[in-house]
């Protein structure tokens, strides 16, 4: 057991902020963290689903605060930063909220440029803004930032260019932040969760049957593994949650 892991385990409480937390992958991660004993701040745009999900977690004994906000807007990020929930520090920031772009997907050659800007605001500007806002809180706990990426970031799949380019940008953001924030003791990882049966994936294929894709729960073993690793060994790496193996080079 590393000294860092011991310190984290003996800490009185651990805290996590999850964006896009009211459904899909974000909800699965939040439910796991809540049961694991993290104090949670959950962020989503729509208050109704967010509050009802938070209620479910509270009924199971989790400590949950909610912020209905859009991570893609200045106002939204200010609202999140002003919760004051992390005075003692932040252990985990999961930048999961993602914007697909037009549904159905449109090729880059004809995508509306305002759609492209909207996607970048949520998928790239949002995570950077939250890291800026919570850098001191993360540094206090030698915290970990998880940026949710996608196989579209490297696939070049027709139609996925708008979303994929934003995730490719986020991958480089993750790698750069890992170098820039190493001296703060903050770890940054990018995680490609793989194809999942989620609202976002359905929006990419409206009306099509996506029931062959696994539910986001399939990623639980990956999260259990990731959160058990020392942050400094993880930082700067990109993982695929549904890969045949997850490793840290010796």
């Amino acid at each position, binding site marked *: 057991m590393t000294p860092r*892991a011991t310190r*984290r*385990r003996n800490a009185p409480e651990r805290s996590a902020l999850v964006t896009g937390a009211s459904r899909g992958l974000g909800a699965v991660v939040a*439910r*796991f963290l809540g*049961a*694991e*004993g993290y104090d949670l701040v959950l962020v989503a745009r729509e208050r109704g689903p967010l509050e009802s999900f938070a209620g479910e977690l509270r*009924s*199971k*004994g989790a400590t949950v605060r909610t912020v209905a906000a859009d991570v893609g807007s200045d106002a939204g990020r200010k609202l999140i930063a002003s919760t004051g929930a992390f005075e003692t520090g932040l252990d985990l920031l999961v930048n999961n909220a993602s914007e697909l772009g037009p549904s159905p997907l449109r090729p880059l050659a004809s995508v509306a440029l305002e759609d492209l800007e909207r996607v970048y605001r949520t998928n790239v500007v949002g995570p950077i803004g939250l890291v800026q806002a919570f850098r001191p809180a993360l540094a206090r706990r030698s915290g970990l930032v998880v940026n949710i990426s996608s196989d579209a970031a490297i696939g070049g799949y027709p139609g996925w260019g708008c979303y994929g380019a934003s995730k490719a940008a986020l991958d480089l953001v993750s790698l750069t932040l890992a170098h820039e924030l190493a001296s703060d003791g903050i770890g940054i990882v990018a995680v490609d969760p793989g194809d999942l049966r989620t609202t976002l994936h359905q929006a990419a294929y409206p009306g099509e049957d996506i029931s*062959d*894709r*696994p*539910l986001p*729960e*399939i990623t*639980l*073993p*990956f999260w*259990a*593994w990731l*959160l*058990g*690793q020392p942050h400094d060994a993880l930082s700067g790496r990109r993982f695929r949650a549904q890969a*045949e*193996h*997850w*490793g*840290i*080079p*010796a």
Partner: protein
Amino acid sequence: MMRASFDFDRPRELEAKSPPEDRGLGRDGVRLLTTGDLGSENGRFADLPGRLRPGDLLVVNESATLPASLPAHSAAGPFLLNLSTYYGDGVWLAEPRWAVGRPGPVPFAPGDEVRAGAVRFRPIAPYPGIPRLWFFRAMGDVGDAMARFGRPIRYGYVDTAHDLGAYQTVFARVPGSAEMPSAARPFTPQLVERLGRRGVRIARVVLHAGVSSLESEPDRPEIPPVYPEPFEVRAATAEAVTRARAEGHRVIAVGTTALRALETAWTYGGMVAARGFTQLTLGPGREVRSADGLLTGLHDPRTSHLALLFGFAGEARVRAAYAEAIRAGYLWHEFGDSHLVWRPGAG
């Protein structure tokens, strides 16, 4: 491929209910079936040096078995908490069972706590697709609890409890397996010495085997039949395997765990040092590139182990070998007999 494709009839009586030592044999007195291009040959495990060639490289799993079965209780009553895999930072995957011969599920309600000695375990979430397995957060010294109260994990087909020593192989060095990597159980120090004199070399990997309880294999096609397990292939082993292959020597994985570790670390052109968690699933359609032979036990119908064997050596070869094993009365399970299988053209 559907799991039903990996079916065959294994007579119920062909299972080892106790270690060979209890049956008046040495560890290496169990039987060894050797299957290659010319069919299957019967023998004893002690004959192994004669079945190998100078220069052959055996790759063994040096994971040691934990006393991973803890007497526990919760609001549901007393049960066994069989620890499967340590994920780090206090999180364990475990299988709560009512008793050795009686699987769960054991029901948990929100806020329930499991106690095992002085250690408290908080249920976090069921394993996706395998509801018998749960993630738990442990509060307290789990190693101490295992040392005081833990027993080796056992299932109903083994009739009595045995000491942890019965569940360790001669290569065991790194504690971490919930269940013995049993393929290496028949090796004795004397046999290892005879192999060395024969010019057979030995390299080591680690793969900590989780619980194998047969009831827990998922039937939903999207759930991987193998769940992630910790492994490590160090640089010296990676180099030894790469060199053996380049020089035309044969590589023999001792156990499906060793094979999965090797294959996880195999990259285009050779083997590299690697560590982490692997859920690599081997079977038909997934060619094995890192090994020529597999020394293993006899595997039950409809298991991922049998799928691996079909993929490794070909279904027809394995079915013929198993017909011979059944005809000759070989014994299945961790205290049972052994099988050395060569890929076509390798032996």
